[in-house]
């Protein structure tokens, strides 16, 4: 019962799996393309905001999925990179740089930081890596809230020029990029090496896979996407505490979405993100935080009984029917 077991076990890594994932990638990209029509068809702000949240969550979940799902390294400090992306992008953007430049700079800093600490952190295996990164995330959050205790609010002329559709299309593009990155990775030699490390690091090393190099590559891709997502957060929110995007709940959200959908698959995190945000928004209307009770329980059940998440459940159901 490995953590990142894909649905259908032995099928992953074969040419069949590549084709399987390409088909899912195409379906998801078409769906995202259709969502591009949403602001034209239904210009209601609450609907657009709602879909924006789903898109941001897809990017966040997919970014975590790369390092945890494919390379098998449970990174519990993911929020640190989301936060770094937000911090850098917000600073540069409010200084007058274009948002896209600011976001890319944020992602670059997040990736650089990840590579710097990754060399040390990857000396730790399994659970030690997880708790080490958890501590790292908390160090950053504490430090940022000490150094920058003031709330960050956009200047009035920026608020006056605020257009939601801009943010929406940026989120759509980011979600598409994250899906594309994972799709290309899943079908590539690189992705195959990562999965080999996830299944058995010693065996992978013995068969010539450079484990450290591949783990660092996975971490760089993952944190780069997380940094971009953080930049989007900084572009979207009018005011927030600078330490907020460093909060551990960003990591936990990504973890829950990925596991509920199906860790180590292309479409699992997308499915997880949609379900998570829909349920969270509707349940939160009536009971604050009640969704965490539900998701916590579902998550435990998935780890114990269904390590491949909903994707695996669907696969099993399909096989029962077609048999």
């Amino acid at each position, binding site marked *: 019962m490995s953590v990142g077991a894909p649905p259908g076990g032995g099928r992953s890594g074969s040419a069949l799996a590549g084709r399987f994932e390409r088909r899912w990638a195409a379906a998801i990209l078409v769906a995202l393309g259709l969502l591009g029509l949403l602001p034209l068809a239904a210009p209601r702000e609450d609907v657009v905001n709602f879909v924006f949240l789903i898109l941001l969550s897809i990017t966040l979940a997919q970014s975590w999925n790369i390092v945890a799902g494919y390379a098998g390294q449970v990174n519990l400090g993911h929020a640190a990179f989301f936060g770094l992306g937000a911090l850098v992008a917000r600073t540069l953007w409010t200084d007058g740089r274009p948002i896209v430049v600011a976001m890319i700079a944020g992602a670059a800093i997040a990736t650089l930081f990840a590579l710097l600490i990754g060399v040390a952190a990857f000396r730790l295996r*399994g659970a030690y890596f997880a*708790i080490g990164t958890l*501590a*790292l995330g908390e*160090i950053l959050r504490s430090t940022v809230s000490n150094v920058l205790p003031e709330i960050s609010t956009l200047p009035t002329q920026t608020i006056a020029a605020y257009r939601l559709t801009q943010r929406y299309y940026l989120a759509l593009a980011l979600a598409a990029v994250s899906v594309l990155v994972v799709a290309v990775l899943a079908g590539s030699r690189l992705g195959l090496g990562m999965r080999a490390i996830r299944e058995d690091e010693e065996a992978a090393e013995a068969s010539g896979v450079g484990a450290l190099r591949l783990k660092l590559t996975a971490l760089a891709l993952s944190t780069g996407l997380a940094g971009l997502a953080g930049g989007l957060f900084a572009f979207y929110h009018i005011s927030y505490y600078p330490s907020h995007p460093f909060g551990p709940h960003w990591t936990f959200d990504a973890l829950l979405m990925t596991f509920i959908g199906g860790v180590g698959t292309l479409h699992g995190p997308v499915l997880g993100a949609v379900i998570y945000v829909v349920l969270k928004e509707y349940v939160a209307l009536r009971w604050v935080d*009640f969704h965490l*009770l539900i998701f916590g*329980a579902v998550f435990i059940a998935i780890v114990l009984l269904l390590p491949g998440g909903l994707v695996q459940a669907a696969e099993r159901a399909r096989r029962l029917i077609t048999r």
Partner: protein
Amino acid sequence: MTVLAQQLVLGLLIGGLYGLAAAGLSLVFGVMKVLDVAHGELIMLGGYAAFFAVGLLGLDPFASLLVVIPLSLLLGVALYWGLFGFVVRADEETRVKNSLLIGFGLALTLHALAVLLWTADERSIVTPYGGAVLSVGTLSIPVIRLASLAIAFALIGGLHLLLVRWRWGKAVRATAEDWQAALLTGIDVRRAYLLAFAIGTALAGAAGTLVTIGYSVSPSIGLEWTLKALIVVVLAGLGSMLGTFVGGLLLGVAEAASAATFGGPYREVVGLVLFVVVLVIRPRGLFGR
């Protein structure tokens, strides 16, 4: 100078609680190879149990330990049967990883449950002797925290004796050393696991009681205490309960010293930095074998 000495004394006093909080986690991790990141939430539940034992039964705060510890033991047995008993069937690497994930889910669930049941407010226990202070030279020592330190030390000492002298305590230690060898000598390894987990949960309950008496409890203290316990476990290494206690004292003093040097807000950061450094450089811990 007296200000610094005063801060160090306060650091030492809370360090005892760090040690007690870490002892349960260390026992469970050492014996079962299960990393229960919901340990802080178990401490939180212990804190609420103490709060209600004092409020509803009118017990003396310290006497509430006599109610909380048995309740926590039962909770530990239930959690083992319901959740962690399934995890120990897997091989070691999967076991650590899965237990981490299950502990995480449990932490989330217990936190959300506590918010629903008891709201997110902070609560503390008010005692008639709450403000009492012992003056030693220029230092003033809060009596309650001194008593908490003494109780924490007594509990750890008791646990140490239990593990060294008691038949089943020896079985637990043997299982921690090498479960396959323990199995071959006829030890019921599953029962040793159950025992370790129940005692670990009881220690969390006791720690929660002392935290609520000396400080306060709210649903969100879990993550903070899990991190403290993890830091101490990594600092001290596995295998010795007394070493864990010393590790706790060390963390308390290190936090106080850093708060005095860099300012109060950085006390959390120093412990975490220590943690990461020791984890990377000496994963066995300072006192670990």
